């Protein structure tokens, strides 16, 4: 008997399609929900830090000190906040302001004598990301302040150009990331229960009595969900282009091919979990635990992979979503071709082959106890 026969795999696929057709809930989860999630959070999530609430404590009360405080507002990043009768320390402690500016008496006098004038900035460091951004803005504020105080700021030797995203629009970054994350998690959940359910309801016994082989079983179960998820991807693609005007700079065929590779990985991961646990409750817990948080946090969606310690960067190589994230942003935002992105493509192909083989092998062991 051959290891793989296409007709047998197709019969399994046909059976699976019937399951899905009977269950409109699954259909909605695969096609409708992803696009809703991407659109909704595409509008909601915003990683830019602006309108930072700043408490201003001006004990100098000179034109110079007022000019400094104005420089913060003029920079566009800060907004003065807080009633003047509440101590700034309390505002910081309660989280009502993110930073406080203290200008001590003598600031104006120092400016008049043209010696460096000092002011103190206290930043709420609990949120280290915002704190880092605030510290980064200070340089620009100092330049604005110097100009307002009549000193001539140093000339700029450097001109910066941002490629692929001239206006530094973080929405495109968020939408492409969301797309990867939503499809990544949902596709794992899609297949996670399919084998476990057959064991629990006993229909697996029936399937085992037929001549179907493990690889046919795995591929037959995978194919219909691949179709469903691709339909979901198509909808997201349309929404991203129409609603968010995400530029699509790369080749469509290359994008579709890498999407298929990625979905094979995650759907096979779900099948593997299902084959291993044979119990729906456990299958769901393992797929949520290995799917949701790792995909959200380790794929490079918001926390850059480049900033991870070396050990964890190596670990993320085994996460399909991490490679697909690189591919998506490379193809969609940069217009990179297959040659530039050969590494993530090869990784995805290897992971897909590995996961499908593993699921088939584990399945076979169950057949011959």
């Amino acid at each position, binding site marked *: 008997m051959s290891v793989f026969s296409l007709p047998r795999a197709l019969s399994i696929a046909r059976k699976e399609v019937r399951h899905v057709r009977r269950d409109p*809930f699954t259909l909605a989860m695969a096609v409708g929900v992803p696009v809703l999630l991407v659109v909704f959070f595409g*509008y*909601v*999530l*915003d*990683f830019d830090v602006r309108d930072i609430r700043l408490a201003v404590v001006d004990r100098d009360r000179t034109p110079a000190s007022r000019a400094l405080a104005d420089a913060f507002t003029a920079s566009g990043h800060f907004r003065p906040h807080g009633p003047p009768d509440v101590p700034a320390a309390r505002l910081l402690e*309660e*989280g009502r302001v993110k930073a406080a500016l203290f200008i001590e008496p003598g600031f104006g006098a120092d400016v008049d004598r043209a010696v*460096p*004038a*000092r*002011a*103190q*900035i*206290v*930043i709420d*460091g*609990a949120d*280290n*990301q915002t*704190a*880092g*951004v605030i510290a*980064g803005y*200070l*340089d620009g504020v*100092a330049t604005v*302040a*110097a100009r307002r105080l009549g000193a001539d700021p140093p*000339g700029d*030797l*450097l001109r*910066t150009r*941002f*490629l*692929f*995203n001239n206006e*530094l629009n*973080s929405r495109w*970054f968020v939408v492409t990331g969301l797309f990867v994350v939503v499809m990544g998690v949902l596709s794992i959940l899609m297949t996670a*229960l399919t084998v476990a*359910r057959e064991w629990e309801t006993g229909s697996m016994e029936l399937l085992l009595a037929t001549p179907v082989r493990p690889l046919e079983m795995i591929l037959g179960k995978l194919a219909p969900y691949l179709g469903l998820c691709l339909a979901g991807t198509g909808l997201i693609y349309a929404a991203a282009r129409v609603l968010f005007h995400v530029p699509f700079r790369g080749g469509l065929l290359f994008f579709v091919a890498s999407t298929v590779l990625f979905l094979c990985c995650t759907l096979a991961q779900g099948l593997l979990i299902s084959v291993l646990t044979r119990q*729906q409750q*456990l299958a*769901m*817990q393992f797929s*949520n*635990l290995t799917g*949701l*948080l790792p995909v*959200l*946090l380790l794929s490079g969606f*918001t*926390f*850059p992979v*480049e900033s*991870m310690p070396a050990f*964890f960067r190596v670990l993320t190589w085994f996460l399909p979503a991490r490679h697909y994230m690189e591919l998506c942003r490379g193809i969609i935002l*940069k217009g990179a071709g297959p040659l*530039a992105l050969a590494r993530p493509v090869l990784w995805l192909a290897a992971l897909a082959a590995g996961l499908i083989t593993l699921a088939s092998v584990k399945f076979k062991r169950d057949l011959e106890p």
Partner: protein
Amino acid sequence: MNPTLVGFIRKEFRQALRDKRMRVVIFVIPVVQMTLFGLALSNEVKNIRLSVQAPPGDRLMSDLRDAALGSGWFLPAPTEGDPVRLLETGQADAVLIAPGGGATRARDRGEGRAQLLIDGTNALRARAIDNYVHVLLRRVSAEDVRAPPVIFDVRTLYNPTMATAVYLVPGVMGLILGLITILLTSMSLAREREMGTLETLLAAPVARWEIFVGKTLPFVLLGLADVPLLVGFARVVFGVPVRGPLWALALNAGAFVVTMVAVGTLISTFAKNQQQAMMGGFLFLFPAIQLSGVMAPVENFPLWAKPMAWLNPIQYFVSLNRQIMLRGAVGPLFWMEWSALCALGAVVAFWAAARLNRNAA
């Protein structure tokens, strides 16, 4: 104590802890995940691959490159090749191109400019890179020996080293705790319904409220058992301080776990089978995690989305947890958010109980 409830607790504990894999899910995975994320995640902008393209003998540019590599934020990238291509393939995050004749000459003559090309796909990272390079250039450029007219003394409160883990771990704790409790609860009732044992339970001589409390209380206890584990790990492994009182931590965790178990129960009353319960769990968890303030700051949400954050138990837990652990502040804000969390929990619990009652009737 009510013997029926004791029986329920015993049964659920046995069912949940019987399987070794379940024990791993409840007690080992949360700690492993928190450790993993705490160690791995960093929102600092690091390991920037910088390619400096300058003619040989350009002092200013080579000084800048040395300063960049010495700062620990940058990694070297190939100095040859088409800059756009380097950025496109991801071999470089930024390319610094000296003007013809070199940047040193351009500075001395006051004409010509160096160009800095940055991969702008990640806006936050791009802005930080731009900032770093400007600061470095100012440092190495001899022109700027004179002191700037305004100097800021910067002091950072609560997290002076600006370590990511200290900020992130209290938040990730909320994600993990929420995930575990929802997963445990949402499927347990759906399972009884699918197996048909719910019918037996309803026919048994126990009151409806006993079924409700009996099915939920064990999961509250299991969820709470994870709390000291997670807090202990956060302290020992990541050195996250616990500046506030422990009772505040307990109050917060208690209200949160009860609310999440109620949410899980509510989801399971809507589900016909375990698969729907699982998808329902995802439909709740995914938005709740996105809106929790761990992925992106809540203040940045558009106005119309903010009310959704107010209905999110995870958001309250994360905010309260950060207040207690990092700021040590148990003030009006703490009580306000805690009351909101409790009110949310009460509403969901009543809703779930009412639905369970109606389903049973």
